[in-house]
């Protein structure tokens, strides 16, 4: 199993051998199935995307519509820009903290939902944060974490502990990461939970009869069989994580002192604030290439772990 072919049941491979049906034959059947999606992709993603890529080689004023082609100037400027390294580092910082904690947390929650309680109420509770819009979540947490008036620090203060600055240069990004973990861990947990439903019960029976502890069961049974789902979840969450925007735009806005100036924030500022759509496009192109490489690498790595799956 790998990401591109996660669950190949025996039937599929059985069929592969004796059938004389031509593989290509399904192409024309596939076309009508794909048509609406391809249309959507083409019109609303590829067309503007390609246009944007072309404009990344120009100075483009979106209001006057004027484009002066400058070749690779935008790219050269980007690589020399002090904000490039900064964006790269702070975005990576965000992704690592966010994905790291979120994956562990959502795995844990998924296991709780799977092994411990079947309550629909708990499932609902867990998904509640995702129902609140990104922007509102950010505003509420920004207030809760405020140094002077936030609830958290007020309680710390009342208990005579030291107050904690959640949005200093060093702590701002981790704080933003945690806010997003809060919002997404339930959602991610449900995705993983969906994958857990595919694990046959007899595997758990066998492990239990053998007297395995919960942790052992998780480590040796659940986790390996979850690999394809985890791979899918990771591609989605990592790709989304790199594009973090709303939470920062509503709270720290790239500060303090560029500590939260991620790629998306930088792109938005160049596009709207500086009216430099060409430069913003160049940065976007870089981000897209980076993410595609990462997504591709992820799928390769995940498929390299196939051997664990067949027991």
């Amino acid at each position, binding site marked *: 199993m790998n990401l591109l072919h996660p669950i190949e049941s025996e039937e599929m491979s059985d069929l592969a051998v004796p059938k004389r049906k031509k593989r290509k034959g399904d192409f024309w059947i596939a076309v009508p199935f794909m048509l609406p999606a391809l249309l959507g992709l083409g019109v609303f993603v590829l067309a503007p995307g390609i246009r944007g890529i072309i404009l990344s080689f120009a100075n483009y004023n979106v209001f006057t519509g004027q484009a002066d082609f400058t070749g690779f100037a935008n790219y050269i400027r980007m690589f020399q820009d002090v904000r490039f390294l900064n964006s790269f580092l702070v975005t990576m910082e965000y992704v690592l903290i966010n994905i790291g904690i979120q994956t562990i947390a959502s795995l844990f929650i998924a296991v709780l939902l799977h092994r411990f309680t079947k309550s629909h109420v708990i499932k609902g509770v867990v998904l509640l944060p995702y129902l609140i819009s990104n922007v509102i979540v950010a505003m509420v947490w920004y207030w809760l974490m405020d140094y*002077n008036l936030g609830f958290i620090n007020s309680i710390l203060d009342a208990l005579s502990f030291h107050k904690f600055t959640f*949005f*200093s240069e060093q702590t701002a990004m981790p704080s933003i990461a945690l806010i997003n973990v809060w919002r997404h861990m339930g959602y991610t947990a449900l995705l993983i939970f969906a994958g857990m439903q595919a694990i046959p019960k007899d595997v758990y029976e066998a492990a239990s009869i053998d007297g395995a502890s919960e942790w052992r069961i998780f480590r040796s049974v659940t986790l390996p069989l979850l690999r394809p789902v985890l791979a899918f979840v990771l591609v989605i969450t990592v790709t989304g994580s790199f594009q973090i925007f709303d939470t920062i735009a509503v709270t720290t806005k790239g500060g303090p002192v560029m500590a939260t100036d991620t790629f998306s924030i930088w792109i938005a500022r160049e596009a709207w604030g500086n009216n430099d759509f060409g430069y913003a496009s160049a940065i976007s192109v870089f981000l897209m290439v980076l993410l595609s490489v990462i997504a591709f690498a992820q799928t390769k790595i995940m498929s390299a772990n196939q051997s664990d799956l067949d027991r």
Partner: protein
Amino acid sequence: MKTFKKIAALAVAAALPLSVAVAAPAAHAASTTITYGLWDSNQLPGYQKCATAFTKKTGINVKITQAGWDDYWKSVNAGFLSGKGYDVFTSHLAFFPDFVANKQILPLDSFIKKDKVAVNTMYQPGLASLWKAPDKHQYGLPKDFDTIALFVNKKMADAGGYTAADLANLTWNPTTGGTYEKFIAHMTIDKNGVRGDEKGFDKTKVATYGIWMEGSGGGDGQTQWSFLAASDGWKVNDGPWNTNYHYDSPKLAETIKWWHSLSDKGYMPTFAQQNGVGWPDQLAAGKVAIASNGSWMTGYVNGLKNDKFELELAPTPVGPTGKRASMYNGLADNISAATKHPQEAWQWVKYLGSAACQDVIAGQAVVFPAIPEATAKAVKAMNAKGIDVSAFYTHIQNKTTFLFPIANKKTQINTIISPVMDGIMSGTKDVSALAAANAQIKALFK
């Protein structure tokens, strides 16, 4: 420019027959509706009144839309892109240069000339020049202005033994901080009740800060430090649109250095600690005693009165030059270049810039209108509401204002100077970094 002259010429040509139609009001002229945008919800009732009176007078309908600051500018930009935006919109000097550069607004010269609007004399001095671009065209009629003052918690000032007279006589210098720093220190109280200027003050256990830091102020420091630096004799450049920047001036360096020292001494929260809930709420909650800010916040902050907080305004301190100082910003309305009704739009702009409307706005006691008579009326109206705004008005009376720094390439300048200012205030950079930033800024214009 040519396109502008063309549009202006067309507008004038169209105006001739139209002005005849408008001059014969009501009757059978199909009424046009123009759209108008603004962001301050507090000013909405006033402008609604103006619009009703305007429609009665000219038969032109005005549809007013109000959106909060962020959304407002998004919708203005979206309107430029879609061609269906506001016909007239409240503009701001921060974005004005871009609007001119992108040819998104109409110059008003021909309208002004034709209708004989005394743009250079009928408003508070200096305001009209702010809205004149380097291309020598006038793009807006001043409608209101704002200055800076100290927003003080009266309850805390009284408890600290400071009378209104004391507050009106604060002095400052960058070395000792003058009576201004003493005031701030005295207003700072630590957890044990010890004041900042008393022995035994523990700056690690501050319960109430003396003064709030509202971010670093970037390149302008409109509400944060501009009034201090100016009272020290500093100027950011040599005039509106001028490119000879002076961020490398030792006067600025000593001002910022002093300002930052307030954090070190515990009188002001550190850069990291002030990130979060804004200053009006901190003031109202009793977390801080003083905040320097602009007159547009007066009504809102006054309304936050509770048992911990009551607003008292104090003028900015007198600096080494022997004078106070305050940045002086003026708003105006711009006409979108994409408007289909330039004539009607101009009528509305003219009305907004006239005594008829500005008197109405004055009565609302929210902002200071730009026509001097209306300003006086606004001061009266605010006094009637119980707010003594002499702290703002003194700069007009004593001519201690300096203009909002208007320039081309503002966003690029900010990209250079803001991180430096942020770094200085957060303690990771030294004031000497300002000189390097200034060189980079000057290089933008070579």
